[in-house]
């Protein structure tokens, strides 16, 4: 590993660690928060964390956005970031907004019937 690779390494791995922290925050929210709407926000955070992870995989030092500008020339692979994870993550974003929409619809029904969205109160009402 060369010297300038060292610098890359530090910025590079720090992002994985921070992504993991983000993932854990989301997971913690789903497990520990009481209000169902907040659980849902935590779920969104979790999904964003996964998206961040994929986008981090697509990065290339010294490369630019994947829109080709040079015309007719030989395209240099090293000068554009990897477009595949971007395409995948667009799909993942769509999935996350769809899931959120369905979940909110369910929450409105739950609230209408049980009058609460707090997990403990809901469990108490279900036990009756």
């Amino acid at each position, binding site marked *: 590993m060369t010297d300038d690779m060292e610098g890359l390494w530090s910025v590079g791995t720090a992002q994985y660690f921070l992504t993991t922290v983000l993932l854990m925050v989301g997971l913690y929210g789903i497990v520990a928060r009481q209000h169902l709407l907040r659980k849902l926000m935590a779920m969104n955070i979790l999904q964003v964390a996964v998206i961040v992870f994929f986008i981090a995989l697509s990065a290339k030092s010294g490369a630019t956005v994947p829109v080709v500008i040079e015309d007719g020339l030989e395209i240099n692979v090293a000068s554009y970031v990897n477009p595949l*994870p971007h395409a995948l993550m667009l799909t*993942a974003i769509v*999935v996350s907004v769809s*899931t959120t929409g*369905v979940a909110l619809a*369910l929450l409105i029904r*739950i609230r209408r019937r*049980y009058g609460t969205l707090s997990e403990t109160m809901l469990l108490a009402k279900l036990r009756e």
Partner: protein
Amino acid sequence: MSAHLPVLVVMVPLLAAVVVPLLGRRSPGAAHAVTLTALGFALAASGLLLSAVVTGGVWRYELAGWAPPWGIEYVLDPLSAGMMVLVSFLALATSIYAWSYLSASDPQRIGIFDSLYLLLVTGLLGIVATGDLFNLYVFLEISAIAAYALLSTGGERATVATFRYLLIGTVAASCYLLGVGFLYALTGTLNMADLTARLADVGESPAKAAGVSLIVIGLAIKAALFPFHGWQPDVYTYAPPPVTGFVAAVMTKVSAYAIFRVLYFTLGGEPAAGSALVFLGWAGVIAIVAGSWLALSQTDIRRMLAYSSVSQMGYIFFGFSLGSPIALVGALFHVLNHAVVKGCLFLVAGGVGWRTGVSSVAGFVGMGRRLPLSMLAFAVAAVSLVGLPPTAGFFSKWYLLLGAFEAEAWIGVGAVVVSTGLSAVYFFRIFERAFVVADDRLSSAQSNDLPVGMLGPALVLAAIVLLLGLFQQPLITHVLQRALPVAVS
């Protein structure tokens, strides 16, 4: 067009799903006819595919005309084609049942219901057919979202149960996606076959192990394997009967299939896959006993069946972990057997609740007289689940036990024996009430069986259980043994 059969099997239901909601507003009958036609087509086409791949070998189909690993491919071998037949057959059977159920209670929503049903089937077929890890995720989500909507229609308690399932299911899908991300970072590919080749060159590392375990955990949650089964009993108990009949029968099996596909085909020979299988085996053994034990203490019939599903998934994963040809044949046969059996049991249990309002085990007194044919189907399926000859369940357990003896997995053998005993107890509890106990008040009750549309599918499934048992030998030699990964057989 027959060259495009692999993709048409998945696309025809999807196309029908687009048409049906628009049609359903004017004429629910026409909408349901389209649904049945599409599912019938899927069944016929997957049957053709199965016969083609059994004789002609693996069939690969490049979607959008791009060669893998750049494009996405469908890979059909006897295993996936067989699963497609299973999925589309149960979809057709439960869809016929759904018509009788819905047209009586909620004709307004048939179009929308059928459309989501078709989307669910499309998702499951896509998972089975695909040879690409990310494409599997997309279809996993199609099936999941359609399932959330369908499961939540069973009333208010179902809504709460479904919301929990939605959270857990999304965590599972995110786990899976993260695992795919790890493997992608290590190999740069998403195609399963390409991944196999590239991963062999990557040295052992925690990253590889993490990728494999995340994928396995994600799919195991979806498959409701023992420590991850928390979402399942509530969902199965409160969902509407036709949906439970299909979801309980097929959805968890498709996740189990995906684990099998990933661990044996894509990651075959990887040490990480080996350790994942050991974990799954132990989880399976615990599930076999714990599921049966919990089922025994339930008073609600559908909840009892749900816990029994936990136990049966344990058998399947126990078989997977043994890894010998005979155990794998047993596990795959058990996938087949349990899908048909559980579909039948849930359809009858739901039908009984629909007709008589009875949902508790205690309420089954005299049911054998009131709903004789339904209870006959129930009995046949239950006998198969317990594992008595000549039903399919006997043979699948027999092969599993042979595999366990061969591997000298005595704890597993013990678990299977204990669980068989327990399941015999909890089903004979019902048989006793339904057929033996004489209830004076009910002795004069007329036989008032389910309508043909609901009874028919249940009886057909029961008949299939018997046929699977009778024709197990040709089925195993011609299909199941060819479905095994090359390295094993």
